[in-house]
Each structure stands twice: as structure tokens, then as C-alpha cells.
């Protein structure tokens, strides 16, 4: 079938895309380019460097890469993305979608509703709820677990914000995988069941190959979002003593509290590059599989 079903034509298509592109161009690409430029300067919001920022070339980058705090932050971010997005959100989201896949009725609605609620509530409210939950002295969790005085946020800051972010972001994965599972023909699963396959074998042989595209979309989006997620700031503010200072918080701290906007911009750009690499790896994975398939076919 011709993809241009409505007879749009190039001209009209451009007309349709243009408004969005203009808005994106002005309010996204332009500031982004500006930010990249700022990253090459020693620009600060106040002080002498605010009056006359100097182009310092790659100094910010060498400084960042040489900075222990930056490297530590990068490592924390990797843990955060891996733990909360790739394993936590994607894993939990998939499990929920899998368990609910052929359910109807109130259980499904309530579960989905709660998971979604965690996603759509404003982040400042959510942050406060979690502070209340994890509070050392009066937190609900300590009351429930009979562990009075256990300072979750101080003793286990990374696990805390990872669990927090799993709670916050699982909805997206759940919905995406829900849609994906709806695309797995029941007959395929049943064929596997008839052959005697266990749940794990069904997942491995039927479901995962089928929803690989969804898995990658999901991982790509949630990894990017988590990489740039700032909401943990409202819970630990990067603390205690930087032990949960993931990159977005690090940038905030150096750019805003420290006033070093040029340096912050440079790190933002580094983050962009890292994101790019992550995205590239994901897309590469997708492509490799397809090429495998093609090669197999080509072989006599």
C-alpha cells in the first residue's frame, strides 16, 4: 500500500511538519546550540565572568573529566539508570503488564490506576510523599517495618532514589509493554504451551523476540528520561555528601549553586554525548539482529 494514503504530497506534508519544527527550532534547538556554545566559555551568572565571559575552549571538558566528583556522579548515574530504569521500571513494568495481560475488571483497573497515578502526580508532591514515607523519625516505612530511626535516605541514598524512581516511572513501561503484549498473537503463546513450554520458555521463545522493538523503544526512552531526571533532587538533593549526586543534580549544583554556568553547560553537552552513545547502542542492537536475519537468509 502506498504510505501516503491521504494524498498529502510533499508540499502539504512540509506544511504539517513545519509548525512543530519551528517551535522546536526556536525553543529547543536554538537554546541547545547556545548551551553548547556556553560550554566552551567560563561563563558565570554573576561576577567578572558574567560581564566578560571568555572562550576557554575545551578547558571545561578537561576539567570535568579530571574531576573526581564528576566521575563519581557519572558512576552514580549509571547505577541510577541501570537500576531504576533498565532493571526497575522496565522489569516491573513488564511483569505487571504480563500478569495483567489477559485480566479484565477491577483488579486490573485499580492496579493500572495506582501505577499511573504515581506517574502523573506532580513531582514536587511525589517527592514530599516519599520524604514522608522514608523519614528517619516518623516515616511510615519505619513504622511498618518496626525499624525506628533507620535513616533510609542517609544510609542508603542510592537504593532509596532508585526505588523512588521505579515507583515514579513504571507506568510508562507498563503501558508500553501492555500494548506490546497485546500484539503478541495468543496463538503463538499457545503453540508454545502445547509444546509444553514453561512460562520462562514462552517468554524467551515467543514474547521477547516478538516485542523486541517495543523493548528497545522503551529502554531508549526511559534511559534518556532517567538520565536527565531531576526529581531525585527534591528527595536527597544529591546528599548525603554527594552520595546520590547523579548528573542532573551535579549540573544543578555546579551551575546554579556554584554559579558556573559555562561548566554546567559543558557537562550538559557531555550528557548529551553520553545519551547519544546510549541511543546509538540501542539502535545498533536493533539493527544487528535484523542483519543477522538477513545474512541467514542469504546463506544458501
Amino acid at each position, binding site marked *: 500500500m502506498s504510505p501516503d494514503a491521504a494524498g498529502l504530497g510533499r508540499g502539504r506534508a512540509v506544511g504539517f511538519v513545519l509548525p512543530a519544527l519551528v517551535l522546536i527550532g526556536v525553543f529547543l534547538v536554538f537554546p541547545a546550540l547556545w548551551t553548547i556554545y556556553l560550554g566552551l566559555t567560563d561563563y*558565570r*551568572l*554573576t*561576577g*567578572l*565572568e*558574567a*560581564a566578560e565571559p571568555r572562550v576557554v575552549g575545551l578547558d571545561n571538558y578537561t576539567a570535568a573529566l579530571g574531576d573526581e566528583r564528576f566521575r563519581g556522579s557519572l558512576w552514580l548515574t549509571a547505577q541510577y539508570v541501570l537500576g531504576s530504569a533498565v532493571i526497575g521500571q522496565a522489569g516491573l513494568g513488564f511483569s505487571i503488564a504480563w500478569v495483567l495481560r489477559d485480566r479484565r475488571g477491577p483488579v486490573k483497573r485499580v492496579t493500572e490506576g495506582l501505577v499511573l497515578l504515581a506517574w502523573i502526580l506532580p513531582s514536587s508532591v511525589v517527592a514530599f510523599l516519599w*520524604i514522608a514515607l522514608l523519614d*528517619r*523519625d516518623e516515616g511510615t516505612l519505619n513504622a511498618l517495618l518496626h525499624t525506628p530511626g533507620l*535513616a533510609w*535516605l*542517609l544510609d542508603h541514598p542510592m537504593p532509596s532514589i532508585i526505588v523512588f524512581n521505579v515507583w515514579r516511572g513504571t507506568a510508562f513501561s507498563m503501558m508500553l509493554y501492555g500494548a506490546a503484549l497485546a500484539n503478541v498473537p495468543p496463538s503463538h503463546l499457545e503453540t508454545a504451551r502445547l509444546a509444553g513450554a514453561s512460562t520462562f520458555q514462552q517468554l524467551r521463545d515467543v514474547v521477547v523476540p516478538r516485542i523486541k522493538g517495543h523493548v528497545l523503544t522503551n529502554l531508549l526512552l526511559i534511559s534518556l528520561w532517567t538520565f536527565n531526571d531531576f526529581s531525585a533532587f527534591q*528527595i*536527597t*538533593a544529591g*546528599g*548525603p*555528601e*554527594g552520595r546520590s549526586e547523579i548528573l542532573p543534580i551535579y549540573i544543578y549544583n555546579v551551575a*546554579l*549553586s*556554584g*554559579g*558556573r554556568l559555562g561548566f554546567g553547560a559543558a557537562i550538559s553537552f557531555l550528557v548529551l554525548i553520553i545519551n547519544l552513545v546510549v541511543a546509538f547502542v540501542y539502535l545498533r542492537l536493533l539493527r544487528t539482529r535484523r542483519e543477522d536475519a538477513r545474512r541467514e537468509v542469504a546463506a544458501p
Partner: protein
Amino acid sequence: GCGTDGGSGDGAITLVITANAISGGKNAESADWTKQWVIPRFEAAQKAKGRDVHVLFQPSGVDDEQYKTKIALDLKSRTGADVIDLDGIWVGEFAQAGYVKPLAEVAGPEADSWEGWGQIPTAVQGLGIFDGKRYALPQGTDGRVLYYNRKLFEKAGLPSDWRPASWQEILDAGAALKRAGVPIPIQVDAGTAMGEATTMQGALPLLAGAGAEIYANGKWTGASQALKDVLGFYRQIYTTGLGDPKLQQEAQGRDKSFARFAEGKIGILAEGDYFWRAVIEPKAGVAPMANRDADVGYALIPAARPGAGIRGQDAVSMSGGAVRVLNPFSKNPKPAWELLSFMHSAEATAAQLAGAARITSRTDVNDQVLGVDPMLKFVSDEVLPVTAYRPPLAVYPQVSVALQEATADVVSGTSVDEAAASYQRKLEAIVGASNVAR
């Protein structure tokens, strides 16, 4: 931009005031005073002079850092309110960035011949001075003391009129309190979670008590003996159970320490007069103590040893305070100056207090109002003479963070030498090795 667009009619001009104050917020009185006292009276006074002046107030209610960002962005793009509230510590960096200009440059010679200057002590004037030029009118100042809970002291057999003369006496009192079962004998803010409070309430007064200023004669204090003494003191408090190290790490640690003090769980707390006025104030405080006047004592922060403080003092303190500046890009600099000076007149300053006691910049007003509150009188009479101010430079916040990190290190068990060395490294990275004094 808004605000400085000049006239809102023929001949009529509009002036805008902005402050990090908003009705319903922490600084609500300031917002209310601006709206209900300053604006109507100033407009009336101008009308009497035949001028049609319109004044608007632009409130705000966020973290100081975010407020600062917003103001800086405004000034950077040459817009913003005509009269702007700033923290005194920002004056230098704003001046360096060209965001603010000396008052005389903006408003003309009237600024230097203002009647009020005579009422403001030189030290307080310093809040608005950078490079020897007056950039701002100070609103008032504060001082830091050691608060102590008399009931707990009594329990521990300590004098109800405690006057520590050295750091050792503080530690001794702490040990006594600890023996008496006080959960947190001493709370001196430490660590990065407390932010600037650590520097202001802890590191800097202690440094002054050890005889050093963080910035003197164009050099920043590095890992000097004074600094090591300060870190050593922290270490003694937090590794011997005199203080609660966890409390220093919590994001809401400072608020919690207020609450703990009010609950009678903290023996000694280093804080500013704000704590007295707004936190444990029996009626409106956020952690009110009904018997504040009887139960809470306050003492000067002693130098490490008598005479070991800066300038050879026996006691030390740190002060800060807010100022107001004129927007150099104002379309109506002269009327703006009139407004600013009006806001700092004795009458206006007194009105801003609205009956509450607090240390204003003007001696004439202080003389009238401080009599009612012995604590503020104490600050004014005994603390301000020994106090010191932070350097108003753009890199100061980063140095402050480095200091906080050094305290955090020792609180979490790092040795003093290591923490000091790491501070030294960071400081050199921030200001350049040649600007660090050892």
C-alpha cells in the same frame, strides 16, 4: 521586560520593587509592609509634590539561590525591577558582573549626601560596599551566638548563666550534658546538606575564633592551622557522641535541629538571632517555645582560647544582612532613588518592624526598638562589635561549599589532615593556587 517601561500615562511613571518575600510566606511582613505602608505613602508623598508615580511590588517566595538567579537573569538582560532586595553577600559579584552600579552613579550625588548614612554604623554600611563604593543601602544585620537550654543545663549541673570562654569549655559542657542523658548535647551545623548555614553558623565563626578570616588581604585561607583547629573541633563534637552526625546529612536537618531544640533535645545550638526571633518565638515561631525567655540562654561564641580570635578578640561572631540596590538600567533612576531612600527612612524602617524587635541598620531606630528584647539588645551591644562579614566575592559560594565539604568529611570520620588537604586542593582549583594563603 516589565516594570521599567516607564510611564503608564502622560507624565506618570511606574516604579517596581522586588523582594524575595510574599504574603503567606516566611518574609510576609516585608511583603505586607511594602504593599501596605511603603507604596501608599510614597505615592501620596509624590502626589503632594505634584508627581504621578505608580509603584508596584513584585513578590517572590523561593530559595535564595533561585531568587538570585532570577534577579541576575533580569539584570543581565537589562530589565527588572527598579528597587531590588539582595543579600549583602551578593553585592560584590553583581557589581563585578556590571549588574549593579554605585548608587551615586545611578542616582547622582544625592545618594552620597543622604541623611541616613549618619545613622548606619560603618561596619553595617560595609554590607553594601564593594571596592570602596556604596552600591546598596543595608536593611539590617544579625549576629550569631550560642543558644543553650537552661533546663538541660540545670539537669547536667551546669550554670544557668553560662559564659564559655574557650572551645574546651563548650566541649566540657557537652560532655556534662551527655552524661545527663541529653540526646544531642551540641549542635553546630556541619556538612553540605545544611548549605550556607554550616558556613555561617559553624565554620566561619569557629575560624574567626581560631584567629583567621576566610578571605583577608586578597588571599583565601587554605589548610592553615586555624582551619585544622576548626576541623578538629568538629571532629571532637561529632566523633565522640556530642553531636548527631546523621542530623547533619539530612536534607531537612536544619529544620529538624530547630524542632529538636524546641523539644528540649539539644543542649547547645549555634544559631543567629533569626532563631530567637522567628523560630522559637513563643507566638509566631515555626517551632515555638512557650517559655523561651526563661528556658533559653544565649552566650557569645568564644574564641578557641581567650584572646585567640581575630583581632585578638575573646569572642567572635559572623553577620550578614540584606540590602537594597537600584537597578542601573532603571528608566527613572532619580525617582527610584527617592523610593529607595524613602524605604530606608527612620519612619519606614520603624514601620517595617511593626512592633517586632530586630536589628535594623539604623542606630536611631535600634535605640527605639531594641530595648524591648534583651536578646536583640545583647546582639546589638555585645555581638556586633566583635562580628565579621563574609567576603562579597563571586567565588565565595564555591569556597563556602568547599568548607562545608571539609566539615562533612570530618563528621563522617575522615582525619583532620586529610580533610584539610582535600579542602586545600579544592580551594586551589577554585581560586587558583596563588590566591591561597596557608
